[in-house]
Structures are given as structure tokens and as C-alpha cells.
């Protein structure tokens, strides 16, 4: 039983780590965009993954995002 619990805990921790890593590095950004509730273009047209990627990095690198 304790081994099962440990395996379950490890699986859960790994899953959370993987999800956090994908969010941290930006892999999950498009999924987040698709699921966003307040998306202004939700009623009009959804950007493709390619369009979203270019639009997102253009916005990110137009303001201070790396420090000294």
C-alpha cells in the first residue's frame, strides 16, 4: 500500500512538474489562449497556432521583459 501511494504521489508530482514546465517555457500558451474566457476575438476569428505564436512574441518583446 505505501508503495502504491508513493507511486501515485510521484506520478502526480511529475504530472504537475511537466505541466508547470510547459507553462513556464510557453508551450502551453496556445492552449491557454484557446481556453481564455475574455478573448476579444472569441466571437470573430480564432488565430491559428502559427499566427498566435508570432503575435504573442511580437507583443512580448515590445516591452521590457528582460532585466539587468
Amino acid at each position, binding site marked *: 500500500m505505501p508503495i502504491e501511494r508513493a507511486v501515485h504521489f510521484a506520478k502526480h508530482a511529475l504530472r504537475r512538474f511537466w505541466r508547470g514546465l510547459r507553462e*513556464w*517555457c510557453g508551450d502551453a500558451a496556445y492552449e491557454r489562449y484557446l*481556453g481564455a474566457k475574455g478573448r476579444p476575438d472569441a466571437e470573430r476569428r480564432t488565430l491559428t497556432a502559427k499566427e498566435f*505564436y508570432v503575435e504573442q*512574441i511580437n507583443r512580448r518583446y515590445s516591452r*521590457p521583459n*528582460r532585466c*539587468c
Partner: protein
Amino acid sequence: MRRVLKFVVWLSVAVGGAGALAKVAFDRGEALNATWFVVAAVCCYLVAYRLYSAFVAARLLVLDDRRATPAEIHDDGRDFVPTNKWVLFGHHFAAIAGPGPLVGPTLAAQFGYLPGTLWLIAGAALAGCVQDFIVLFCSIRRDGKTLGQMAREEVSARGGFIAQIAVLAIMVILLAVVALVVVNALKSSPWGTFTLAMTIPIALLLGVYLRFIRPGRVLEASLFGVALVLFAVVAGQWVAASPSWARAFTFGGITLAFLIIAYGFAAAVLPVWLLLAPRDYLSAFIKTGAVLSLAAGILLVRPHMMMPPLTRFIDGSGPVFAGKIFPFCFITIACGAISGFHSLISSGTTPKMILRESHARVIGYGAMLLESFVGVMAMVAASAMPPGVYFAINSPASIVGGTPEAAAATISSWGYHLEAGTMANLAHAVGEQTLLNRAGGAPSLAVGMAQIFSSTIGGDRLLSIWYHFAIMFEALFILTVLDAGTRVGRFMVQELAGRVWKPLARTGWMPGILLSSAIIVGMWGYFLYQGVVDPLGGINSLWPLFGIANQLLAAVALVVATTILLKMKRLRWIWVTLVPMVWLVAVTMTASYQKIFDANPNLGFLSKANSLAAQIASGQILQAKIAETQRLIFNQRLDAAVTGVLALMILVLLAEALVQWFAILSGRREAILHEAPYVATQWAPGFTGTAPGDD
């Protein structure tokens, strides 16, 4: 029972921290072990976080988790993205951690390890973390507004304009000085230059992959890119070993400066997806990995401090940079204890992603504690090498001499023993032609890191690989700051120029892009060139200028924060921001005054200019060198003017704020806060839905 146990644990942490700090401060016996530094820093951070940040959160800011954050209200999946606390902590830390906390403490080690270490710990806990935390809170309450917008709304329109100019000025100085650090690290180093040059085609490859082949798959692309970069580090030694290839990648300071200027221009003009973004991904992964490895290396190796706690240079006669502990230790450490630049991150990207107000504590206060710890590690790495070696690497040739014999004689005469052959052997061991006169902090930090890493893995055999890995890591993320900063600077120039002629503000208009990019690159490029040709190595004048600009921006942020707290009627606790603000104003004004007017030509810009002018007048300068000397005189006067303008800006902003504070306190003006309206969160207790990322 649990409460008693908690109390005992925290008491032990506090007593342990105090004991370790006392050991660092007062022990004058054998060389101190680095473990004491780690224990002192970590315990102090834990106590500061547990007590001081909790006090600021509960009493001063009164964080309210029932209030919806901008991320919840707007949630557009682009800027406003509700993000898990720890993921956002990682984002925020990756954004604020730059070369400053590595280079600053390394340079400040010239005073010995004690002053810098104490300021890194105390400055972060009482000033830097407070600034980041409170600016983040203020921005959250204002829909993620920037520092400039908050200054305009809460202080005055003029205050906002001053903040905008201050940001541009600091950006120019920052980009110049970090570029100079890279130039000094890569000068006459074919291995380092090759490795860094290779990161450009690797980034282009990643850019194409992420744009056309697997859009947005950053993780897989970055891991592949990191593997290529590590291979480039190894391949660099083959380049250095081949005479013809080595010649192709061996450059002097001026050529390297122009190459970096050209790179900065290209990065500002080219599409972001092609070069800038993929380089940033590479840098983020390598930066995180290198910082974690350094921490692990220090804990495993536990090196002894070879540097004394205080050196003879506390009197202001230091060879790395001139000036006494007050104010120059604080100006030099800058980002590791408090960084004005962080207020731009805390009031831009992060507040739009925060899920709950209470998360601001760990993200704002906590991430800055971690940055301070990076500074402590840099101090340990710099202090773990013999002081003679440290001064030989970081001192300019005009002070210690250009040959190993001259440098050894001069440095030994200061009381820090150095054999003439030591530097040649060390240079050979790390695969460099020379390590003498490499001011800028990067090479000495790389030597320190390489010694720590090679003591863990590989021994002396891998010293040269570790050295070039460390140089690549520093240069890579310095260039990331450089290209991202140049692009942001371009937008700032376009915004300002648009006030004169509207088309210039159009971000898609190519002539406007080229002109504004040329202006921003020309501005920092000029300071870079000036630093490269400076006989004192450039760092001597540019790093303090950068420190002053950075700390002035921190003062601007604290002025804005204090004004907002005053309007929130938190008078009782106003000292939390007021005291660091007064301290920063005192430090920056003293440093500015000394850099402009001090009679010592090594310290004061004007006295240096006057002394050079006197040398020309008395015929001590050769005819062929007169034009060059006149350029040096002009540069010294320009530096004095820039310092004066920066100091004047903060004084004007301070005067604006004081008028406002007086009017509010005397009841002549109503304290109008420009907060966004209160919206109750849907994620408060009782709400049955799930907040994305909050599990």
C-alpha cells in the same frame, strides 16, 4: 503544541542565521568556508520572508484575495493570463535575473567580501524585495499599468514624463555597459568568440523551426538548441587549437564592439521570431541551469574564501573602480540588492498574469530574495580565488601594468601576493591567451565558477571547458538583455519621436524602424566605444554610471510607491518605502556628486577632463595623441553631463512628489487614487469553479 513547534523552528532559523552572519562578519581566523555565507543568507531570507514580507502584506498593503486580479477580469489568453503561482514565480525570476547580480558583486569584491555580502542580504530584504513587491501590488490594483503610467497618474504628468526619460536613459547606459562586459570577456579569445558566434545560427535555426515547422513548441526546440550550444562550447577548443581558425575568431576590443553594435541593430530590425525570441529561449534555459549548477557546486565544494573580509581599497583607491565603500559599494552591487529595472517587470508583464493578490508576496518579494542569493553566490565565486589573481584579472593595464611581471610586482606591492607565472599558468589552464586586464567581472566570475565546477566534475582536465561554459553563459544572456533592450529602446525612441513627427511612431513603418533603431544603437554604441578606448578599461567609469542610473530608477519607483501609500492613508507604515527611498536618494546623489566633481581624477569626471587638458597644455601629451586625448576629455565631460541630468531628473521628480505629499497631508488636495474599480473574484471561497492553474 504545533504553535510551539513552529516557534522553535523559526527561532532556530533566526538564531542560526544570526550566528552564521556573525561568523561572516567577525571571524578573522583561518579562511572562512562558503557554507557560512549560504547559511547566513538563506536563514536571513527565510526570516525576512516569514516576518517582514508578511507584515508588509498584512499591515501595509492589506492584500485581498476576494478582489479579482486583472488576469481574472480580462483573461484574454495573450497578456492577461491567470497563471499558477510557481509558474509565474519562474517567469518573473527569469525576467528579473540578469547579469547585474553576477557582475556587480564580483566587482564589489574589491572591497573584500564583507561589505558586499552584508548589503546583498540587508539591501534585498529591506529595500529591493519591498520595491518589487509594492510596485507589483500597485500595478495589480491598476490593471497592470506601467511605472510611467502610474507616475503620471499618481504623482504628476511631469513625473510620468521624467520616469519615461529615466527609463530610456538607464536603458542606454545599461546596454552600453553590458556590451562592454562582453567585449572584455571575448577580447583575444577565439574559443569564447566562436562559441558565442555559434549561438546566432543556432538561434536562427530554432527561429525557423518554431515559426514554420512546429509553431510554439518552445520546450523541444530549446532543449535541442541547448544541446547544440553545449556542443559549440566543446567545439570552441578545436577552433582555438587551429591557428587559421583561431586567427579568424580573434578580435580586438574595437572590432568586437562594432560587431556587437551591428548585432544589436540587426536584432532590433529583424522579425522577433527569427533571432531575438529563440535566443531568449536558449538563454532562459542555460541561465536557469547555470545558476542551479553554481548553487549545487558551492554546496558540494564548499570553497574557502581567499579574499579578506575587507581590503585596503575601502579607502577609495581601488584599481577595479575608484570610490569609497559609501556610496560605491551600493552603486556597484546595484541589482543584487535593489534594482530599479525590476519595477518595469513588476509593473508590466507579471501583474497581468497573477492569479490572486496574495501571490504578489512570493512572486514580488520572494523572487528578489532569490536574485539576491545569486549575488551572494557570485560574491563567493569571486572571493574563492586568490586576491592577487582577482586583481590581475580585473585591473586595467594602466594601473597594474600590461605584462605579467609588472602586474605581479604591482599587485604584490599592495599586499596580495602574485607570482608572475601564476597568471600565465591560469590562462593556459582555462584555454585563454591571457587573463590579465580583463576588467568587467565576467572573466573573473568565469574563473571562479570554473574552479568550483571542475572541483565537482572533471578536475583540472575540464577547467578550460567549464571556463568557456561560464563565459558562454554570461555572454549569452548578456546579449539577450542587449537585443531585447535595444528593441524596447527602439519602441521608446519611436514613441518620443512620434511627438515631434507622427509617422515616426508607426511601429510598422520601415524608415521609422531603421531610424529609431539606428538612434538607440548609436546612443549605447557610443558609450560602448568610449568604454573600449578608455585607458582605464571603461568599467571604471561606465559601471558606476550604470549603477547610478539603475538606483535612480529604483528611487523613482519608491517615490511612486510612497505617493500611492500616502494616498491610501497608510501613514503609520509609510517608512517601509520612505526609508529605502531616502537611502537611495542619499546614495545616488552622493555618488553623482563625487563622479562629477571629486578632485581625484580617477573618480571625478571633470577633474579627469581637466587633468588631461592640463597635460595637453603643458606639452606632456605627444602630438600624435592629442586628438585621442581630446576625445577622452569630451567623453569625460559627456559622462559628467549624463550623470548630472540623471541626478537632476530624480530631484525634479522628488520635488513634484513632495509638493503633492504636502498638499495631501495639509488637506489642500484630495488624495485621489487611480485604482481600477473593485470587482469581486469568482474564485473566492464558496465559488465552486476551478481557477485555471491554481491547483
